[in-house]
């Protein structure tokens, strides 16, 4: 029987990691909810953002928590352009084509990174990376705590944007009824691109929160995003609440199964859960659509 002293910190660390999973999943689910596509380029975009955060620190000594305010708008613009000028025009609205275009983008970006930066795994050594806070019953490193609270701030901001602003209303209108939105004069192509941009910005924020305690290589994002897919499916495609809860749940499951079964089998646990949910309840725990 494992003692309480090991279990509790594992749960805490799982929750902190789960927060970042939740953020990446939030971006996926937002894009799915509006565009109805699964963005296979998500992982490649995350790798790209990790590299950007890494080099900002490595070359210019800019802290990830500061560079995030530069990277988020930059990645928003990049995501906007990707959807507006590549994914949209190339796929002409056909589902299968969208699937393939995002896959093509993923292959392209990932291997461009591989070609330029090689397969080396890099880490940054920020002064605070290993400082930990004692909660009495568990130690948690500072970056994980920052990530935990930052994700709530981002989620709240996103919620505010979607529920209060005009652009948010337009996004929700397009998600609900694309043709109707178009008829009342909403520029659907623009809204699609805005949504994709927002999702990409979330990925950039996740990268900045992740880099102090994680590593970067051209495939770093890929592994991460398969987990994000699991969360999105678990929580229900397009459900924001589902993505948040699913993120924390998976973070804890991963942390605990890593503790019990070791690293690589812990990964299998997530995939099996993923396949199981897809087969048994593809609409997820919070999803309305089958």
């Amino acid at each position, binding site marked *: 029987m494992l003692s309480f002293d090991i279990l509790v910190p594992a749960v805490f660390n799982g929750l902190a990691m789960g927060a970042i999973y939740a953020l990446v999943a939030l971006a996926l689910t937002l894009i799915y909810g509006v565009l109805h596509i699964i963005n296979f380029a998500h992982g490649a975009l995350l790798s790209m953002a990790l590299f950007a955060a890494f080099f900002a620190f490595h070359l210019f000594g800019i802290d990830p928590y500061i560079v995030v305010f530069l990277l988020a708008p930059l990645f928003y613009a990049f995501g906007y352009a990707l959807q507006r000028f590549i994914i949209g025009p190339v796929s002409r609205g056909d*589902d299968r084509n969208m699937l393939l275009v995002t896959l*093509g983008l993923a292959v392209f970006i990932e291997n461009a990174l591989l*070609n330029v930066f090689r397969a080396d795994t890099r880490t940054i050594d920020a002064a605070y990376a290993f400082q930990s806070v004692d909660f009495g019953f568990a130690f948690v490193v500072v970056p994980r705590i920052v990530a935990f609270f930052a994700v709530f701030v981002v989620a709240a901001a996103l919620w505010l944007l979607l529920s209060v602003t005009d652009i948010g209303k337009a996004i929700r209108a397009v998600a609900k009824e694309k043709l109707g939105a178009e008829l009342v004069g909403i520029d659907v192509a623009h809204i699609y691109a805005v949504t994709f941009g927002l999702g990409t910005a979330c990925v950039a924020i996740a990268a900045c929160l992740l880099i102090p305690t994680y590593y970067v290589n051209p495939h770093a994002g890929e592994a991460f995003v398969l987990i994000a897919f699991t969360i999105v499916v678990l929580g229900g495609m397009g459900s924001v609440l589902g993505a948040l809860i699913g993120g924390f749940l998976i973070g804890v499951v991963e942390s605990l199964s890593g503790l019990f079964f070791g690293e690589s089998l812990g990964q299998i646990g997530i995939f099996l859960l993923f396949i199981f949910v897809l087969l048994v309840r593809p609409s997820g725990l919070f999803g309305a659509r089958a």
Partner: protein
Amino acid sequence: MKTLALIGVVVAVLAAVPLVIHSNVALNFLIVTLLVALAGQGWNVLGGYGGQYSFGHAAFFGTGAYVTAILQVRYGVNAWVGFGLGIVGGALVGAVIGALTFRSGLRGSYFALVTLAFAEVLRIVASVAPITGAGVGTLMKLDLRPQALQFESRAVFYWVILALVAVVLVVTHLIERSRFGAWLVAVRENEDAAVALGVNAFKIKLQAMTVSAAITAAAGCFYVQYFLFVDSGIGYGTWISIEALLTPIIGGVGTLFGPLVGAIVVKSLGETAKLVTGDAPGLDLIFYGAVLILVIWLTPRGLIGGLTVLKKWYLRRLVPRRPLVSDARHG
């Protein structure tokens, strides 16, 4: 009959290549091209004719390769028998995954995701299970005898893979002309309508997936006979899932010769890119990603689809159009 004759001509021309080209490097390139074409032919049965886009055909390729290798190395099974059982193994994996996913009604992006996840699970299992050699992989013994399905001359290997491609061309042609093929296309075009007309979509998709998996598994079996090595990254890696879908989509999705044309174009492009800029990692894949996007943009039905459009346009310019009823009505 016309199509069968065309297959005969194409295969005969390709079969004559080793009589002219003796360079081992060139033959190796051609063998790998045909290998990828074969994997793509498998994908094309399910993805091209059935409209079910799998992102995880590595699951079948890897199973074929591992079954062939493990049976020979660990159980001393004859290579030819191992090859056949490898195909059967791949088909079984395809049937199981197909039964599970189609039973739950997964379509489109969901189907792509779940096939990807199955391939990943198999990759992780193969990288830790003792029987696959875990992280080290499985190395086969060099035994250059025809009964061991290994040949001293690359030309013979080339003819073997060409024969496999030729058989699949004929099989695909028969599927195209059969009732099963018509049902499969009906499911692709509109599954709900097909079901409403009495097509058993589940059964049709499952059969297509089993055939598709068997063909891609054959490519895996051949891979291990030729390179004598497989590990989890090769067998179940994403590279083969991508190449298996890339070749038919670039060549012409749902067309008989699509995968073959696609493989030749894609592999030539990749090799040219390497020749021009040196052997940098990931360079060929950068090209694949770009070509994939370009082809979907310019000609969604692939190169063969593009040619058909050009041909129609050309004929329309040559042959004066007869006025049709619909034309008359619309002025």
